[in-house]
């Protein structure tokens, strides 16, 4: 365990040194995977199926805000579907527009979840999504997960019916339109998954926030069990056709991923190294502020309170305790206000030997 903790500290240290380059690189990598997958799975527009173009688009995503990945993924998929059929592209466009107008307008930060959920479905590891989003997101992330599932099943419907759609004449426009909508709305597996993932995301998030010991572990286990139960019940009621071997395996993988995330959770909460510039009338300041490493309070103090037989001594003890508490709440050098999102609940970890 000590070795693991040391590795974690080392990773945090490396991350704090290179995060300025690492974050754009991760964005580039994610964009590349998403766009490459769209080209591989859809690929109806041959002009877009070009690695140089994907690389340029991914580079753009590396330097632009995170929501750019979703925007470019939407453009790429729409272009491919347009090459297959105008009517199907219209359905896809309407769905994307509804997701943006009704939800992503409020939560642009969640756009990455909508882009990555279909990718994880395609990689056959979808059960990780609700657990991870419950752990790092908010209850509203359930909507992002649901939107991601909707997008995945729309694209899967298009690829599944591509031969039928391609074989239809241009005067069968309404038939194409109806084929896609009927296949999508009649997909029981999608509906069961949306309900299961939304419920699991909310439950995991609520349990994780409870102030109980091992809240993360309880949340992970409760989430996985609930996920399997809902899928089982959904399958029994709607005959949705889940393969329970893959559900169980996927859930176990979700537990492993979630435990790794739990181990690195301080890296997730980690406040970034800040590079800021400002000036006053005397100096120009170019400051690099590196956050201190934080660990949770692990020491416990046991306070013994004995009833004293001497009332004077009891009064003296009470007063000195009150004085101590006052000093604790109003330390003398507390004139610099600390941002609550930075260092609210953790203590600074400097050198335990000095304390």
């Amino acid at each position, binding site marked *: 365990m000590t070795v693991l903790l040391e590795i974690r500290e080392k990773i945090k240290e490396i991350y704090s040194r290179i995060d300025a380059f690492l974050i754009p690189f991760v964005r580039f990598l994610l964009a590349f995977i998403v766009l490459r997958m769209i080209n591989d799975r859809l690929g109806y527009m041959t002009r877009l199926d070009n690695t140089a173009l994907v690389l340029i688009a991914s580079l753009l995503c590396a330097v632009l805000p995170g929501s750019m990945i979703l925007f470019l993924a939407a453009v790429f998929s729409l272009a491919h579907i347009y090459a297959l059929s105008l009517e199907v592209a219209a*359905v896809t466009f*309407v769905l994307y*527009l*509804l997701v943006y*107008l*009704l939800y992503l*307008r*409020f939560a642009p930060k969640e756009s990455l979840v909508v882009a990555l959920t279909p990718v994880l479905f395609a990689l056959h590891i979808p059960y990780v999504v609700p657990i991870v989003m419950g752990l790092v997101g908010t209850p509203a992330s359930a909507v992002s997960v649901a939107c991601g599932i909707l997008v995945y099943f729309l694209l899967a419907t298009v690829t599944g019916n591509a031969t039928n759609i391609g074989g239809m004449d241009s005067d069968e426009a*309404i038939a194409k*339109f*109806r084929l896609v*909508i009927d296949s999508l709305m009649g997909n029981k597996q999608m509906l069961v998954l949306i309900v299961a993932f939304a419920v699991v995301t909310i439950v995991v998030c609520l349990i994780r926030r409870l102030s109980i010991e091992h809240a993360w572990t309880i949340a992970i286990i409760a989430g996985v069990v609930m996920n399997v139960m809902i899928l089982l019940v959904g399958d029994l009621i709607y005959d949705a056709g889940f393969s329970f071997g893959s559900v169980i395996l996927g859930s176990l993988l979700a537990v492993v991923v979630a435990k790794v995330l739990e181990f690195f959770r301080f890296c997730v909460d980690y406040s970034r190294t*800040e590079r*800021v*510039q*400002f000036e*006053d009338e005397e*100096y120009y*300041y170019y*400051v690099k*502020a590196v956050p201190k490493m934080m660990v949770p309070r692990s020491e416990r103090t046991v306070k013994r309170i004995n009833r004293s037989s001497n009332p004077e001594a009891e009064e003296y003890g009470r007063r000195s305790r009150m004085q101590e508490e006052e000093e604790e709440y109003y330390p003398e050098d507390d*004139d*610099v*206000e600390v*941002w*609550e*999102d930075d260092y609210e609940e953790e203590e600074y970890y400097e050198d335990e030997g000095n304390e």
Partner: protein
Amino acid sequence: MLNEKRVILMTRMAAYEAGEGRRNMATGRYFRGDYVALQLLKAFISATLSFALILAVYVYYNFETFMEGLYEINLMEFVRTQVGNYLRFTVVYIIIAYVVCSVKYAKARGGLRKYYNNLKKLSKLYQERE
């Protein structure tokens, strides 16, 4: 001579201004009523557009049925039903938007209050030096 306390304070404020503070300042420029009204107007436009899109898909999906029963359909009844659906949809969406933007505004003001407090402290530190 560099004043360490001042540099720490200015660094924290500059980091806030560059990140979360930029968004909060855009929100904090408005009075609460103005901000909420603007967001609700945007929500109304979004809801109207979304409903129009859903209705267009519904009509196109049932286009053949509509054309077959064009002379039998009670147009006024159809319009009345759709207007009812539109009102229900818009009202629910606007209520959700109201809750979301109220929470966002309260959070932004909370962050800005701390920022302005630190600004005062910074100005006091400069006055002390003089």
